[in-house]
């Protein structure tokens, strides 16, 4: 009988740590592939596994290898059909590997077309590396904790609602045994005996009378003792103890505000969408639950579903403040800021009704910025304009007004994008570890 061992239940991922070492090693190259893919591909697909080409840089394992294109070799091959010695065979291809050498095709030759799949977590790690919430947001995140009481043992003081009956009765029982509190049964038995004797009504001085007296005294002792040793004494009482546990606020709501008036075309909407998706993805890494509220506006604002938000157009003027008012209303209505981390991203082409921009600034300064963890304003430019506007602080009326807000609130960021390639850098800039964004705004 040999030694059989069933290893199937052993942990499977023995190579996992080696895989992680490999990914760490190839980090730079993998990151580049992932970034290229995300830039070029659909952003909604980001949240999944990615297949990437095998990284070569930094993961090569060199050794002394003979050069195939030099010297003289002899190969022995099977399956000769009609060659005789002295025959000449043309070499397949020129310069490269020899036909006979094909047998030795090793990993090195295969790696060119070899792609492997990174898991979703690995992709996001590569993608969001060094992308952290700005410090200020982190600190305000800490403030935004809520407390939840959590059971933490027992205590001798507390409110009556927290009495732990089981524990209290246990203590009481122990104490009663220890102090020998007379049981009810014993008292009852004594009382019955006394009643029986009293029925007979013995004469004073007779033996039963003495016995009755004796019993009555005994009864008195018992009752006194029962009174002194209470059934439940304050020392028995135990309360459930609760400790307030700080809970990081795990809910976030993300407001997407967009101008959908005629001036916003497909291109602008697409750019805006990409930005929103990226923001959503980013928040998803931080929070357990994220609600998204879509508010579109022309000269009036509505909360709509995602499909309508991105697809349908509406004609009308542009009054940005309506969207802000709608957002404020929804926050007050459904998302109290003590329970929710509120993020807002606004996309617009910068048009606004004359005079409304000041109203927006007031709304933001006085109301909304107090509620929001972060407010990002993205202005979508025409590609031709981008060259002009990128470098200057001039711009649309909305841009100029928002700059005033940006000066007051550190968690207000604004930037301009013109083409899909811009989005990711801009996103990084907005959420960069250091607030480099401040210089641009």
């Amino acid at each position: 009988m040999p030694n059989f061992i069933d290893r199937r239940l052993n942990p499977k991922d023995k190579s996992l740590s080696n895989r992680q070492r490999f990914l760490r090693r190839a980090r730079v190259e993998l990151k580049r592939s992932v970034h290229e893919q995300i830039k070029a591909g659909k952003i909604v697909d980001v949240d999944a596994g990615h297949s990437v080409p095998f990284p070569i840089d930094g993961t090569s394992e060199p050794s002394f290898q003979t050069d195939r294109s030099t010297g003289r070799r002899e190969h022995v091959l099977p399956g000769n059909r009609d060659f005789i010695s002295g025959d000449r065979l043309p070499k397949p291809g020129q310069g490269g590997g020899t036909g006979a050498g094909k047998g030795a095709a090793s990993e090195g030759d295969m790696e060119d077309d070899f792609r492997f799949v990174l898991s979703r977590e690995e992709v996001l790690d590569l993608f969001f590396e060094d992308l952290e919430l700005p410090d200020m947001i982190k600190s305000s995140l800490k403030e935004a904790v809520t407390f939840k009481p959590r059971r933490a043992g027992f205590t001798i003081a507390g409110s009556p609602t927290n009495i732990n009956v089981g524990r209290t009765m246990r203590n009481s029982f122990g104490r009663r045994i220890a102090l020998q509190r007379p049981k009810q049964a014993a008292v009852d038995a004594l009382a019955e005996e006394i009643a029986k004797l009293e029925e007979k009504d013995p004469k004073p001085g007779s033996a039963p009378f003495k016995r009755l007296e004796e019993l009555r005294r005994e009864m008195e002792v018992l009752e006194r003792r029962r009174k002194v040793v209470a059934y439940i004494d304050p020392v028995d009482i135990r309360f459930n103890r609760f400790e307030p546990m700080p809970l990081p606020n795990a809910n976030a709501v993300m407001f997407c505000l967009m101008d959908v008036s005629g001036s916003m075309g497909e291109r602008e909407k697409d750019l805006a969408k990409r930005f929103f998706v990226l923001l959503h993805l980013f928040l998803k890494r931080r929070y357990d639950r994220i609600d998204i509220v879509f508010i579109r506006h022309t000269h009036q604002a509505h909360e709509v579903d995602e499909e309508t938000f991105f697809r349908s157009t509406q004609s009308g003027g542009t009054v940005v403040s309506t969207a802000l008012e709608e957002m404020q209303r929804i926050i007050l209505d459904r998302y109290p800021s003590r329970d929710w981390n509120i993020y807002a991203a606004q996309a617009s082409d910068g048009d606004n009704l004359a005079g409304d921009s000041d109203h927006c600034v007031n709304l933001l300064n006085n109301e909304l910025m107090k509620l929001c963890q972060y407010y990002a304003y993205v202005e979508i430019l025409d590609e031709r304009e981008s060259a002009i506007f990128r470098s200057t602080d001039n711009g649309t009326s909305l841009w100029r007004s928002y700059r005033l807000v940006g000066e007051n609130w550190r968690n207000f960021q604004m930037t301009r994008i013109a083409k899909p390639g811009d989005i990711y850098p801009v996103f990084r800039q907005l959420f960069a570890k250091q607030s480099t964004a401040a210089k641009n705004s």
Partner: protein
Amino acid sequence: MSKSARPSDLLFHGSDWSFATLSRTYDAIKEIALDDLGLDCYPNQLEIISSEQMLDAYSSNGMPLIYQHWSFGKHFVYEDYLYRKGRRGLAYEIVINSNPCISYLMEENTMALQALVTAHAAFGHNHFFKNNYLFRQWTDASAILDYMEFAKGYVTRCEERYGFAEVESILDAAHTLMDQAVFRYRRPPRISSAKEQARARERLEYEERVFSDLWRTLPHSKQSSDPDEEERDAQERKKSLNLPEENLLYFLEKNSLILEPWQREILRIVRIVAQYFYPQRQTKVMNEGCATFVHYTIMNMLFDKGRISEGHLLEMLHSHSNVVFQPGFDDPRYSGLNPYALGFGMMQDIERICMTPTSEDRDWFPEFAGNGDWRATLLDAWANHRDESFLLQYLSPALIRKMRLFALDDEAKENHYKVASIHNERGYEKVRSSLARNYDLGMIQPNIQVVDVDLLGNRQLRLQHTVREGIVLSESTRDATLRHVRRLWGYDVSLVGVEGNSDRVIYETSTDKLSG
């Protein structure tokens, strides 16, 4: 045991396996293997694993445990990719040269396959590991698992103490020299795993104790201009350092100018692992041939005894013929000579020559043709040869004809191959010796040795590549590898390519001339 094939004699029915049928089958196989074939095996330990675990085992060179390094992760990713794409199936088994001999059986295998694999790995490979002279001399089966355990723990402790990056860079450099990290001729000292840890500590303590800074302050000897004296000095220096040295890692471990004791210990670990696998690389054809021949023979004997049903035998033969399939050189499926096919073909051929030789066989193999004892002949061949010598001694004209082997002359400068010899009277010898040379690791791998060290001057380490047949090293990997050698040596390293028979220098390179 009854000779008639009654259903009750069958070892198993259907395709599902259980530990009861595995055990019953094992016992039946063992009886034939030990009593009939006369195999001599280590005790067996059979482990059932899943496909994920098989992939894990692939990435760690088939060892059940190995130190951690990214390159194993890379291999895992690669194997995993091939497997998931369906480009490559998984092996039915992996067997480890250890005592007890560990064989991994895949859980997906049917019972028939488990029987085949048990005979193949637990008896064929096992016997080969225990008896082949290379394994007996160069590996220590009873110590290897303990040693790997030690190595893994040691590397982990180093990572904790000196950081991942430090350990990784040493391992990277050491891995590049794995092919040059074996003793080919000198027998290495046997490793005794139990004492290994204590020795590592002792070595360290000793080196700390005998270190004396005074030696550094000694005045340099006077420069002598006498060429004779210089020559004598060089001779003496080489003698004291045991030069030339073929085992580069060994040399660096002992003589590197900058390595810390723990770094030397890591070089030692890599070197010992390389040495452990060296015999396997030299006996691929024989090892697989032996195991395939054993499983084929045992399965047929079991069938003859009525212990296996026809259906199961057919299933086994199907797998068997897949394993020994050898497409011709012009077949799209061709990827080199299949060691299973070549090895199994030769073993069967030896059996035939022993039992029913032709006159040609008698001419070629007078020592054993017709001796009627193929068992002893094979046991002897398995014990005393490696691929190169085995091919050279036992490849028969009959098999050359059967496989239609031919030799191609490949001069890199020409734009055509020349057919050097084919399977005819004039060609047998040449085909045979060419093939044998192709299995000689000493011929395939570049011969690079440490020849000199300038300890008093600029401390340059001089390596020499003896160039055979004009085959030089591929430059990109050569330079990258040299940089790693420099990392371990601490000072510049030069490599000279010298033509084997004329001492003509073909190329020369040095790390101080390499950029980066």
